Each structure stands twice: as structure tokens, then as C-alpha cells.
């Protein structure tokens, strides 16, 4: 799965805007200040390119927690900032999607009662279910805004986020490559 070129272009443009706004090429910044400005620019640019969805709103919420970030966020997101700052509403579909997801992942036990001889089968599927539950908790922490998501939404947003992150990495990598080349040409 890939994002369209227009996504990467928008990401690059806003990221460069972020660099300009935070004056990354000035000498007055420390290495860490510059790095943070770069990272923040990259994240805000990714949000801008993706538009409004649950994980982008989650990411804006967590980036906004640091007051120092507000100016740069507003500068990069422009008019989109207000819309992206709206709190996430909980989907009414949550209970059903969680059940359907679990069924598809083969996690629901079809038997209501288990006899003694079923003991081994039951414990291995119980373990599987517990492991999956644990890993879902981990995923929820990795995904921006993940805490309020369940089932289908969680996986769907995860895919969306991973694809966008990959694009962010690609753009940054390309930028680094070009920067090195242009530096050598001076």
C-alpha cells in the first residue's frame, strides 16, 4: 500500500515551511532544538497531508500538550488547525465492531460450555485470546488517539497511520539524500 505522490509532495512542502518558520538553518539553535523542530515539522506536515482522521486528531492533541509547539503547529496546519483540534467522539459502532473483529480473528469460543476433556483446547485458545488482548493494548498506545478506538476502527486507523508514517520516512530520507548532495556541490 502506498500513498499518492500528491501526499508526499504536500508533506514535503509543509515540512520545509516548518523548517523556515522555526529557522532550522540558523546558527542560534542547539542540536536538540533543531532536531525537535525538524521532528515537529515532519509530524505536523504528515497531519496536514493526511487531513482529518482519528489518528491525526490524536497526534495534534498530543503535540499540542506542549505549549511551545503551538506556533509551529498553527503555522504549518493553517486553517486546518481548528478542525484538527476538535476532540474525538466515540463511535456508536464500537461494541458490534469489536465482536465482529474478534470473530474474524478466530478468537470467540463457539462452545458456551466446556467439558473436562475439552480442557487442553480451551486453555490454548484462552492463552491466544489473552496474548491478543495484551498486544491490542500495546497497539493502542502506539497509535495516536488509539485509546479511544476499538475493533475495526483500531485496525483501520492503524493501517492508515502506518502507511502515512512510511511516507513520512520516505520523504525525510529523500530530503536527507538531496541535502547531502547539495551540500557537496557548494
Amino acid at each position, binding site marked *: 500500500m502506498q500513498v499518492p505522490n500528491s501526499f508526499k509532495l504536500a508533506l514535503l512542502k509543509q515540512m520545509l515551511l516548518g523548517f523556515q518558520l522555526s529557522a*532550522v538553518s540558523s546558527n542560534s539553535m542547539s542540536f536538540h532544538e533543531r532536531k525537535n523542530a525538524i521532528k515537529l515539522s515532519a509530524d505536523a506536515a504528515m497531519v496536514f497531508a493526511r487531513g482529518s482522521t482519528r489518528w491525526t486528531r490524536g497526534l495534534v492533541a498530543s503535540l499540542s500538550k506542549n505549549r511551545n509547539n503551538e506556533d509551529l503547529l498553527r503555522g504549518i496546519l493553517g486553517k486546518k488547525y481548528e478542525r484538527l483540534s476538535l476532540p474525538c467522539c466515540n463511535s456508536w459502532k464500537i461494541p458490534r465492531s469489536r465482536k465482529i473483529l474478534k470473530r474474524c480473528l478466530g478468537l470467540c469460543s463457539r462452545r458456551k460450555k466446556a467439558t473436562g476433556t475439552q480442557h487442553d483446547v480451551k486453555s490454548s485458545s484462552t492463552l491466544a485470546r489473552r496474548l491478543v488482548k495484551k498486544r491490542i493494548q*500495546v497497539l493502542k498506545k502506539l497509535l495516536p488517539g488509539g485509546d479511544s478506538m476499538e475493533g*475495526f476502527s483500531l485496525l483501520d486507523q492503524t493501517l492508515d497511520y502506518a502507511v502515512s508514517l512510511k511516507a513520512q520516512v520516505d520523504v525525510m530520507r529523500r530530503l536527507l539524500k538531496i541535502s547531502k548532495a547539495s551540500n557537496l556541490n557548494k
Partner: protein
Amino acid sequence: MSSRRSRVSEEEINRLVSKLQSLLPETRQRGAGRASAAKLLKETCNYIRSLNRDVDDLSDRLSAIMATMDSSSAEAEMVRSLLRS
């Protein structure tokens, strides 16, 4: 509860799961069938973590190089290069 509605959703979920699998570097290589839910989740988490590490590492390297760069000409060059691809 309409069973027809759930069947459509199951298709959606299967589609979603296979999209995820094709994205993940390890499960993509598997020839045989479908990864377990636990494995899928583990590799998804690992993938996201590794992408985050890449972003962090690239930020470090960009920070080192940006210090010595003239940003206005480099920007133009970069945008041109991306438009070319």
C-alpha cells in the same frame, strides 16, 4: 441483528487484515495462508516502532546537515526533484 450485515463487515475485515499483512515486511514474505491474530498484531507493533525509530534517526541526521545549509536554494532543488519522480 441482520446476518447479511455482519457478512459484509467480515469481508471488510478480511480485506483490512490482508492489506495489513501485505504492508508488514515479514508477513508479506510468507507463502502459506494467514498469520495468526497474535502474530499480526506483534508485527504491526514492531513495524510502527521501527518507523518511529527511523523518523527519529532521520531527524538527527537532518539536524546535523541543516546546520550548515542555505535553506532557500536547497528547498527549490528538493521540490523540483520530487516533482520529477
